[in-house]
């Protein structure tokens, strides 16, 4: 077969589109025309990898030109069950994220006002010596974009090596409330259902969630079902209209914090109308509440009877809920009637709207509660499912447990048995792991930004794979003050310059995504693996190597924590012949597969909470597997789609329909929680009359450090903006494109106005996406957080809007 290059590229594209069309239409994947397949593989080397961006976890096929060592093609992976060959605009441009002109390629040390290049050796030395001087003053701040082995190495280094628990991920800012919701309801973290529920349900309820933009490939399942003539009722509940609303059967607009009242109202009507599931109440549920929900809420609370629960929710009549939430009483009946109907299947979806919430744990518990109370749980299509924003918030932050209180595999530092188990797997001496939880994100940064003499006991902070100078709330309090304190040293590993690197004392250039081996865990418990496919630029190196190199330098400096029980280096690794490989030297790092070695060790942690993982090589052969993954008698590995359900989960006691085998009450039952409605900590008033909500947009991912370097996504959404209701705009005499100052009690930010934009906030409410580093909206947001999960509320604070009339001058 012979064709010119453009014809070939077009034929390849058409073959991919036709295959995907077949899959969408009939659920079948026809074989690629063999002549096209041969041609493709003779020119470009393809391999799989999960997408670098969101928690959906689509799989890509990445084409690399071996002559240039560059990515030249990205396709949706037809064999991937998550995305069935589809991608969103971020995913299909993901390859270009590698090639921004300003990639960081050399370690840089701040000297005076400038960053000057230094050698890796010197950089590693500086970090090790600072830690050696004050190990207790060191903190590691990572993310849900750490690969599983990267997070595991950082976790082992900090808790198993330094005996210090000051490690927390940015995931604290996005899913900590989901974790506390799952743990206090089921005794174990992460959703019981999977994306398959979206293919099976009759009703989808989005709770302050906009999957049409934020998880677009998942959302397209709904569109496709409808286009095949299936009836799917979509109920969108939110504080502003979004692209998801455009597809909704019903849109219920609630006042900020009103979601708590809505959930309580549904629970009340289920009880009042006797439409709850008697079977669930009798066999599978206990009821709980916090004795002091305002001052001292806890993960375990205290038990209450079903009658007490009924009485507690009885004040949340539809009329009362209408008053608190703004949603008409008739719609609360509509929701309660849906939940009260056992013949339909209901999937609830949520993400940051419910998690970034000062009552984040409460609202998570309540939504689980109404699914359980109504029996909409444990059947395909019946599931309360939280989605994650980051590609490995589940796999790394939650499962590896890179949180200040956690140990791998669902363990916690406060539990002596868990510490011993971890010390045994790590082969470190008894007592190495500190029983006291470290600082959670907000506290860690507060301590770093506080002078030592005033109790700011963190003096060296290492950031990997995230951009806190941009993404922390209230950065005027949590980020910038440390930059003026002499003894505070900020290390940032990243791939591009960001607000964080600009203010860092030491910058380390990192390898990005397919420039290194990696593993992620997506929102549906799916663990995914990929191999390095291209070389990183300049001197950029893997984050995991950076951690191991610092650990080894500390070992050389005589830090006892970097030795195991037998006096060997904490990260000693051997090749197949049993010979030790000096992986702390960059030239030797890829002599063995470090990811495989770390993962095989980590895997031993995963059985305690029945989150069993398969061996590394099994993941290399699959497009991810959903844990628990168990070995069948024939030696194959089987994933589990429906946790706690007898028909699928092998850990459910034989003969049981449902079994919550990690129940906090040790009786196989889940907990249904009561929590009262509590008003938000800051509400609009005469001085600050508008609500402000922040969030994301389809084209950009988080702080935009990668997607703002991709010309396509940057052109599609070149800058941030503030969405304003047309009547508010008219009152303030604002027009689209005009620049305004958004100001809170904490700080201000200048943004162009967008009226009737993509999202449509109600009167008195504004929305600002946070991706744009030129318009740092987190100088405005509030650092108030959920008292249990410690997750800040980025979704509601009070602001005023002023018109910018000339540089430096304002009116209004």
């Amino acid at each position: 077969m012979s064709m010119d290059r453009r014809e070939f590229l077009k034929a390849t594209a058409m073959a991919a589109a036709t295959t995907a069309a077949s899959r969408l239409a009939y659920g079948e994947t026809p074989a690629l025309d063999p002549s096209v397949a041969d041609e493709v593989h003779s020119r470009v080397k393809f391999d799989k990898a999960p997408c670098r961006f969101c928690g959906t976890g689509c799989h890509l096929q990445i084409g690399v030109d071996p002559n240039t060592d560059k990515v030249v093609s990205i396709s949706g992976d037809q064999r991937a069950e998550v995305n069935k060959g589809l991608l969103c605009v971020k995913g299909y441009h993901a390859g270009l994220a590698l090639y921004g002109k300003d990639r960081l390629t050399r370690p840089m040390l701040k000297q005076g006002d400038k960053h000057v290049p230094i050698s890796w050796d010197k950089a590693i030395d500086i970090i090790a010596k600072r830690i050696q001087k004050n190990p207790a003053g060191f903190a590691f701040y990572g993310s849900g974009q750490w690969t599983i082995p990267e997070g595991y190495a950082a976790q082992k280094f900090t808790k198993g090596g330094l005996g210090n628990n000051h490690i927390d991920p940015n995931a604290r800012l996005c899913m900590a409330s989901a974790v506390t919701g799952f743990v206090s309801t089921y005794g174990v973290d992460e959703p019981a259902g999977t994306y398959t529920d979206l293919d099976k349900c009759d009703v989808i309820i989005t709770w302050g969630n906009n999957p049409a933009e934020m998880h677009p490939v998942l959302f397209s399942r709904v569109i496709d079902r409808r286009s095949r003539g299936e009836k799917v009722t979509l109920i969108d509940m939110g504080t502003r209209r979004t692209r998801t609303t455009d597809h909704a059967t019903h849109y219920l607009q609630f006042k900020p914090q009103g979601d708590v009242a809505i959930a309580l109202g549904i629970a009340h009507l289920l009880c009042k109308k006797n439409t709850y599931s008697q079977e669930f109440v009798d066999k599978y549920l206990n009821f709980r509440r916090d004795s002091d929900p305002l001052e001292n809420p806890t993960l375990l609370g205290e038990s209450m009877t079903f009658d007490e629960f009924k009485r507690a929710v009885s004040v949340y009549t539809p009329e009362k809920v209408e008053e608190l939430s703004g949603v008409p009483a008739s719609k609360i009946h509509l929701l309660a009637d849906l939940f009260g109907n056992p013949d339909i299947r209901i999937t609830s979806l949520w993400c940051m709207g419910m998690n970034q919430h000062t009552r984040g744990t409460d609202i998570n518990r309540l939504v689980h509660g109404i699914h359980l109370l109504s029996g909409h749980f444990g059947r395909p299509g019946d599931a309360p499912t939280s989605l994650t924003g980051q590609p490995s918030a589940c796999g790394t932050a939650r499962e590896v447990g890179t949180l200040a209180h956690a140990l791998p595999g669902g363990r916690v530092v406060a539990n002596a048995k868990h510490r011993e188990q971890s010390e045994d797997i790590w082969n470190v001496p008894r007592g190495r792991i500190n029983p006291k939880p470290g600082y959670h994100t907000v506290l860690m940064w507060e301590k770093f930004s506080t002078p030592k003499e005033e109790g700011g006991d963190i003096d060296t902070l290492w950031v990997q794979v995230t951009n806190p100078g941009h993404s922390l709330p209230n950065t005027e309090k949590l980020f910038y003050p440390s930059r003026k304190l002499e003894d505070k040293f900020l290390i940032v590993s990243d791939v591009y310059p960001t607000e964080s690197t600009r203010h860092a004392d030491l910058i380390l250039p990192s390898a990005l995504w397919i420039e290194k081996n990696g593993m992620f865990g997506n929102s549906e418990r799916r663990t995914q693996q990929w191999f390095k496919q291209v070389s990183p630029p300049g001197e950029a190196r893997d984050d995991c190597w950076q951690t191991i190199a610092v650990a080894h330098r500390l070992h050389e400096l005589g830090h006892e924590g970097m030795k195991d029980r037998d006096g060997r280096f904490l990260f000693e690794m051997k090749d197949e012949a049993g010979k030790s490989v000096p992986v702390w030297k960059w030239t030797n790092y890829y002599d063995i597969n470090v990811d495989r070695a770390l993962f095989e060790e980590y895997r031993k942690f995963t059985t305690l909470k029945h989150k069993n993982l398969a061996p590394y090589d099994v993941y290399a052969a699959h497009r991810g597997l959903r844990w628990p993954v168990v070995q069948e008698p024939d030696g194959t590995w089987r994933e589990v789609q429906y946790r706690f359900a007898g028909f699928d989960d092998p850990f459910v006691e034989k003969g049981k329909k449902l079994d919550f085998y990690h129940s906090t009450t040790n009786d196989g039952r889940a907990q249904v929680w009561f929590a009262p409605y509590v008003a938000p900590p800051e509400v609009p008033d005469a001085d600050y009359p508008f609500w402000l909500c922040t969030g994301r947009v389809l084209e950009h991912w988080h702080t935009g450090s990668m997607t703002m370097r991709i010309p396509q996504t940057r052109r599609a959404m070149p800058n941030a903006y503030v969405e304003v209701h047309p009547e508010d705009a008219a009152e303030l005499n604002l027009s689209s494109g005009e620049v305004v100052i958004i100001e809170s009690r904490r700080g201000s930010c200048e943004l162009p106005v967008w009226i009737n934009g993509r999202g449509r906030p109600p009167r008195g409410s504004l929305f600002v996406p946070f991706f744009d580093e030129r318009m740092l909206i987190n100088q405005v947001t509030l650092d108030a957080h959920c008292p249990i999960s410690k997750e800040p509320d980025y979704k509601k604070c009070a602001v005023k809007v002023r018109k910018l009339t000339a540089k430096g001058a304002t009116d209004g």
Partner: protein
Amino acid sequence: MPISALVLTMTLDDEQREAALVELERNPFNTLGNLVSNQLPLVIETSTVAEGIELVRDVIPSIPGVDFVHVISIDFSDMSSRDEKLQSRRKRISDPMR
């Protein structure tokens, strides 16, 4: 010149779908594949990135009869420059407070 592979989910209404197909065929950037049930494979080849974005994001979804646009792949091996001249990332609208 970027080449993108798309699948368009077309309406189940025959008349509107036919009109949409005619409209799509009229655009010289588009190469239409064979309709698979109501899913249309489509390859678009544009001379600039901006044109491609406009087509995928605005023009195609706004055609009556096109229910949804799925993006399948992009090939950018022919693009001479991967980073076009864009507005400075660092510039702020006015001086920050610090």
